């Protein structure tokens, strides 16, 4: 039987500080100009390097290169992925722009692989809305001469450079936002799978390490011994607060509204505490040694998830003596 699995997506819009060189490069793209960086050996790198690869001194000499260039080598993709420049089949190419000494990796909207060849002439297709971002280059397209886009925009490519807004437009871009989306499939271990299936039945199980005899909840390969657990041990849905904190601060990714108490709860029969919420009692009344019991969600909502237990609340039993949990701090 396959163990449980589920998708996980991690996403964030990262804010790249560009620094002086790449900031000027991005500002150039905004006005449909491609800037290369001249290094001490006279070569022009596109995109520009921030530091000279030979002398390691800062690169300061930026020169404009042509929006047209030559394909140095290429490959073809029939199945574009999320986040790639085009959503239809396209060529990945290393393109040396006229005036540059290095090649730039980008997409060529060639329609068919039959059109692609090494040595073919290509030109930049500019994005209509340009913000000073690498995506201001939408892609490349076959052809020579001025980009077709310029005609579409109804203005020649060089206007912005010389217009009244030129100085403003040339202000370096400081930050470029880069969205990152990572998709994973999280597959549970055999131990985690058994634990989750028990939770769906309203039971909490641990497993005992055959070497140190400690009961781990959730069950796992013993972190201390490195040995797979064997004996399955029923564990109570009540236990002792070993220690805790009161979360008063909001933060990114948070799923509860502060303030709330997150406690380490040592379930009866387990040898390691689990973190959980303590509700049903004012935060200032939560204390080390407090006895608590699980509050389960309605049985109809149970699934293979620890969220079947909504939170813990005081059980009404006398506090556990410090000595009974001191070794779990």
């Amino acid at each position, binding site marked *: 039987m396959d163990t449980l699995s589920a998708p996980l997506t991690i996403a964030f819009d990262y804010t790249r500080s560009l*620094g*002086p060189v*790449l900031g000027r490069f991005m500002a150039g793209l905004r006005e449909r100009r491609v800037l290369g960086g001249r290094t001490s050996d006279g070569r022009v790198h596109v995109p520009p390097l921030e530091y000279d690869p030979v002398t390691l001194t800062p690169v300061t000499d930026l020169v404009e290169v042509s929006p047209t260039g030559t394909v140095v080598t290429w490959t073809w993709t029939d199945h574009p992925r999320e986040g790639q420049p085009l959503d239809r089949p396209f060529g990945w190419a290393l393109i040396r722009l006229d005036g540059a000494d290095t090649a730039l990796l980008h997409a060529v909207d060639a329609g068919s692989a039959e059109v692609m060849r090494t040595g073919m002439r290509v030109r930049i297709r500019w994005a209509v809305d340009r913000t000073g971002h690498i995506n201001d280059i939408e892609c490349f397209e076959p052809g020579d001469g001025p980009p077709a886009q310029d005609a579409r925009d109804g203005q020649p490519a060089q206007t912005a450079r010389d217009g009244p807004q030129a100085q403003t437009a040339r202000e370096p871009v400081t930050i470029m936002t880069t969205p990152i989306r990572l998709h994973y499939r999280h597959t549970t271990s055999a131990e985690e799978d058994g634990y989750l299936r028990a939770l769906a039945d309203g039971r909490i199980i641990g497993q005992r390490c055959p070497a140190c005899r400690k009961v781990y909840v959730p069950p796992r390969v013993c972190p201390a011994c490195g040995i797979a657990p064997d004996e399955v041990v029923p564990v109570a849905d009540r236990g002792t607060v*070993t220690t*805790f904190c009161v*979360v008063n601060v909001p933060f990114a*990714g948070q799923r509860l509204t502060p303030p709330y108490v997150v406690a380490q709860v040592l379930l009866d029969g387990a040898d390691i505490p689990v973190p959980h919420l303590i509700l049903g009692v004012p*935060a200032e009344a939560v204390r080390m040694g407090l006895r608590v019991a699980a509050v389960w969600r309605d049985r109809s909502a149970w699934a293979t998830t620890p969220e079947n237990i909504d939170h813990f609340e005081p059980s009404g039993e006398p506090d556990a003596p*410090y000595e009974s949990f001191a070794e779990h701090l």
Partner: protein
Amino acid sequence: MRRAAVLGTGQTRHGTRRTDVSMTGLCREAIDRALADAGTDWSQIDAVVLGKAPDLFEGVMMPELFLAASIGAAGKPLLRVHTAGSVGGATAIVATSLVRAGVHRRVLAVAFEKQSESNAMWALSIQPPFSAPITAGAGGYFAPHIRSYIRRSGAPSHIGAMVAVKDRRNGALNPYAHLRQPEITLESVQESRMLWDPIRFDETCPSSDGACAVVIGDEAAASSSDRQVAWIRATAMRTEPTFYSGKDHVNPRAGAEAAAALWAAAGIKDPLNEVDVAELYVPFSWFEPMWLENVGFVRPGQGWKFVESGETSRDGCLPVNPSGGVLCSNPIGASGLLRFAEAAMQVMGRAGEHQVTGAATALGHAYGGGSQFFSMWVVGRNP
């Protein structure tokens, strides 16, 4: 074993948002200062070791790939080190090992974090499927362990605030520090917002952009330096699982064992009397008394009394974090290397306004993960 020494150190001006520089520029700001301080140039660097905390913080997988050329690694060995928050310390130790093994004469160690590229609280709170939504953030992870320390040692509640006042005032003397608060008082700390009870706002490190670099050389390189070097008398690293039954989160075994190995290797029998200054990794103020006990300066339960006596202030018998420490600047990946570099700066006599007079022996210390990775070194004015 062959000798090794810190020839020079460099660090950035640390701040919340260093949007004036890229990651590359940030690293180079520290590296260029370290090379100048060491009196070396690129031609004399034989290898580069780079450390930073999880790649999710900047969203760039393996940043060493795009950084390699700009940090002088082209044509030379480049190693990347990963040990969470302790990585800066581990980076210095890897570089030291390359020199001590006789592989290289001069090695550049650099570590950085550009926290402004994302949000570390978010990155540390990723919730996998099948887990309960019990996230509490970085402070929420450590706050319960601080509560355990207070319970176990009987420490009064003002100890954390005392450490915060000391470190923030120290940071005011450090031109590179992110937070510089000469006016801070015990009362203002105690009135600051409670974030993760028992941790208050002013007892918490900032989120910083920053980098640190050191040049480590062998005995010949050290001898040819015309400036005072910091001799690396011993290094130690130890690891333990993040969680296991019976783990002591207050006084972690890996930290205690690393320290014991460190003192033995350095020939130090009485750390409190033989060490002149310590740079401890203290992201939350209460970790100062906890680490004072863990590394063996004082016995378990005595750390808070030592803090309360004022002996960890700059004029005390063991100044701790005269630079202001992590409480004043926390570019996570660089924070460990900053502790190691600040220890070296003290024994080289180049710590500026926060120089501890006569410092001849210093400890640099870092930890990371859930008190899982520990790295330390002892540096001295003499070998």
